[in-house]
């Protein structure tokens, strides 16, 4: 991936990620998250994962975040903006996160494989990478059982949501 584009999208993604955390207004948080996810999708494209990028946008930006926004608006959270941050929690949380980031950097410094440049792909001439087909093949042959389990999980989740959101639990 081009370093310029990588830098741009990585920076935007992290910046909007920070904005998710620091924004008091939940709607602003949610929209920042959407932008962050879109940048993430761009990074996926840079990694030649077109399918994952599309699914990221369709599922996260198109469905999950709309759902978030929908709920935030429905609940009408006005009190949140007036709340004061707990200074101790802020300090502690920031400290733990910084420690974690430092650790990541430290570990990565000792990870020799991490310094390899982009490996080139060997593709037949006149053909682009058909990742959909490959992912599909992998999913439906090697990972059939997990796929089934995920299917059942979604069914359970659907039923669960319907039960939870019924007004009176009987």
């Amino acid at each position, binding site marked *: 991936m081009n*370093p310029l584009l990588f830098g741009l999208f990585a920076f935007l*993604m992290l910046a909007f990620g920070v904005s998710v*955390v620091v924004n008091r207004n939940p709607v602003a948080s949610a929209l920042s*998250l959407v932008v962050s996810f879109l940048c993430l999708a761009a990074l996926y494209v840079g990694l030649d*994962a077109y399918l*994952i990028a599309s699914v990221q946008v369709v599922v996260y930006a198109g469905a999950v975040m709309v759902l978030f926004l929908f709920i935030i608006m429905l609940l009408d959270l006005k009190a949140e903006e007036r*709340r004061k941050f707990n200074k101790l929690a802020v300090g502690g949380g920031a400290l733990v*996160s910084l420690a974690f980031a430092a650790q990541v950097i430290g570990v990565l410094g000792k990870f020799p494989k991490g310094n390899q440049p982009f490996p080139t792909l060997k593709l037949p001439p006149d053909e682009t990478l058909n990742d959909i087909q490959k992912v599909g093949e992998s999913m439906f042959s090697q990972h059939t059982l997990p796929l089934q389990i995920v299917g059942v*999980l979604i069914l359970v989740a659907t039923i669960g949501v319907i039960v939870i959101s019924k007004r009176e639990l009987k």
Partner: protein
Amino acid sequence: MTITLNYYLLVSGLLFAIGFAGVLLRRNIITIFMCLELMLNAANLSLVAFSRFNVGPDGLPNFNAQVLVFFIITVAAAEVAVGLAIIVALFRARQTTHVEDIASLKF
């Protein structure tokens, strides 16, 4: 200057740290939930990066990692649906989405 795997892992780690920080210091359930999503996506980014940098003998990326990402996204979507339903139910009962206001186990 070339982009190596470490760059991706670093960005992924930072994104995770940001999400983690959000979970620790925000008190609004919905924001916490969003930060969780952020963390999941950080993991996804590492996975996709690993996939791309692990080119197999056939000259193609290792798609197993991408399948895993696919599963993660699916599970995350299901989790969001259930989680938001719970939040709505909670809000109906308590009129708040603030974790500090929800201290009792049973209501």
